[in-house]
């Protein structure tokens, strides 16, 4: 952001020697409005359509393909429908808390965009506690969800809200413990500095820095899915048990705010993991021009995040919802101890090789490539076994 402000002043668009504070305020306000209105909100909408198409293909269906080209405008149609619906507040509900809850959930989703490292210059606020801020404000969701569950005055909502609170607080621990290895290796919490400590080639990513980081990335992804109430951890809104969980009594716009935040959170999950483990916006240095480099970094960062978003949709289409006791077991008996072991392992690793071990980097990349090859072999095996007609085009 600093670079951008200096670029605006230097370009002379605002006359000679404009007051720095005012230019900075205008640039930050415009940029944050742009990020929220042009990036965040449409992303939450479009991702619903993408997700429905991805699931559909997993289930050998087509998915919404009628509104606009390939059904691309489906999200607008759904949004307009929800906005036009009646906003019902139940008689027995606590009206103030009931109305406030969706905004808190929404707020918890909007705030992390402030430290979203789109590129080396495009970051609204490069806080020195960036990643801590990210995990802290996303946890505000639990307040909103608990508030929605309590104020609805309905047993489904209450159980859904309490489950969600228990789940988010439990999974905050393995998530935090899996962020620590990276913090330990870089010695900083700032998003930009964590990214700058990595390179654009995979062997310089923290995902492949050492075996402990590889496991930490997996644990962080699982915990982030659980915190975002995504399948297989979407117990707060398990339809078969709890109708719609904390959202049971909501309708219209307020209902859509909950789900906008839920789908929008996919980007936050992807961004955290891309920043910590996948090298963030690190792109090959093809040009000295900062504008070209920033656009390239933006593309690289978004490609990584969108791949992770796709991965989470794919997981949602694959795995069934787990039981509440299994959810707790997975967190406390498996993820937390493994995350602690990881933390100690990383500490030892950093003590042994403070500058990192490049041999291990190449070894881990080779291991990752071997996993991908093994995976493709399994996919080909299942395709052969099914003897189905192949269809490679994503659109139909």
């Amino acid at each position: 952001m600093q670079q951008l402000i200096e670029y605006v002043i230097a370009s002379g668009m605002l006359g000679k020697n404009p007051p720095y504070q005012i230019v900075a305020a205008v640039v930050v306000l415009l940029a944050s409005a742009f990020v929220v209105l042009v990036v965040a909100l449409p992303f939450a909408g479009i991702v619903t359509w993408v997700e429905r198409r991805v699931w559909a293909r997993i289930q050998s269906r087509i998915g919404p393909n009628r509104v606009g080209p390939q059904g691309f405008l489906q999200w607008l149609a759904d949004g307009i429908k929800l906005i036009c619906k009646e906003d019902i507040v139940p008689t027995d509900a606590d009206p103030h808390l009931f109305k406030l809850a969706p905004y808190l959930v929404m707020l918890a989703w909007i705030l992390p965009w402030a430290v979203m490292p789109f590129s080396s210059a495009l970051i609204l606020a490069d806080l020195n506690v960036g990643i801590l801020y990210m995990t802290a404000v996303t946890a505000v969701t639990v307040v909103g969800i608990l508030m929605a569950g309590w104020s609805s005055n309905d047993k489904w909502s209450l159980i859904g809200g309490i489950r969600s609170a228990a789940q988010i607080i439990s999974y905050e621990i393995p998530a935090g413990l899996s962020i620590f290895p990276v913090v330990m290796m870089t010695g900083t919490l700032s998003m930009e500095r964590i990214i700058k400590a990595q390179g654009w080639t995979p062997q310089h990513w923290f995902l492949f820095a050492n075996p402990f980081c590889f496991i930490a990335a997996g644990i962080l992804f699982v915990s982030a899915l659980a915190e975002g109430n995504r399948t297989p951890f979407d117990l707060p809104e398990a339809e078969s048990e709890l109708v719609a969980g904390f959202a049971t009594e909501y309708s219209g716009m307020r209902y859509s705010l909950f789900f906008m935040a839920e789908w929008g959170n996919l980007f936050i999950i992807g961004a955290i993991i891309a920043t910590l483990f996948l090298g963030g916006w690190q792109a090959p240095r093809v040009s000295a021009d900062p504008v070209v480099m920033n656009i390239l970094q933006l593309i690289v960062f978004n490609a990584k995040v969108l791949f992770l978003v796709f991965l989470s949709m794919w997981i949602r289409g694959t795995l069934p919802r787990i039981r509440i006791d299994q959810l707790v077991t997975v967190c406390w008996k498996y993820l937390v101890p493994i995350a602690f072991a990881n933390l100690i392992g990383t500490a030892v690793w950093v003590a042994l090789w403070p500058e990192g071990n490049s041999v291990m980097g190449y070894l881990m990349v080779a291991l990752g490539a071997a996993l991908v090859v093994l995976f493709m072999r399994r996919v080909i095996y299942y395709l052969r076994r099914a003897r189905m007609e192949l269809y490679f085009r994503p659109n139909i």
Partner: protein
Amino acid sequence: MGAAAQYFENIRDTVRTVFEGMAVTASHFVRKPYTVQYPDRMPVRVQDTLPFRYRGILEVDLEICTGCLACERACPIDCIVIACEKDSATKILTIAQFDIDIAKCMFCGLCSEPCPTGSIHHTSEFEGADFSLESLIRRFVREPVAAYKPKKGPETDPRIAPILSRGMRYVNEFAAPGSDKPAEAKTA
């Protein structure tokens, strides 16, 4: 098996089954979806793929209708209404009205069985939804027409011959009594 071994066994099972499950769903990304996009994105109309004996909405070919009223008598729910008049001087039978109430029709096929020429027959059309019950009444006679008189030899009129041959095929293959019964019932 000890508790520790069981613990690591569980982790291995989880990772392996998730891996396999993801492989199965990944293979679905390149499979052709089963969805049939009825009605507007079909390679062929569904009506054209249906078998000849399909019992869709009834239709009458007035060119070969003999005015015998066999179908009206056969209909168990009286959804067919026919009005015939015979001119005593010219001996010509005139059909003044031939209405079928599709809203009442239960597609049993009993009317098409006694028809001597196959004039009343089921089509393969099944998309009959409409906004009012009145518009479901099919009125086949616009103005009174003379009934068809079967000839002693083969039909010679080039306009009627193809219609009659289709009708007779229908009578022989679909409406012939007993043709719809299983073979063992016939012999017994």
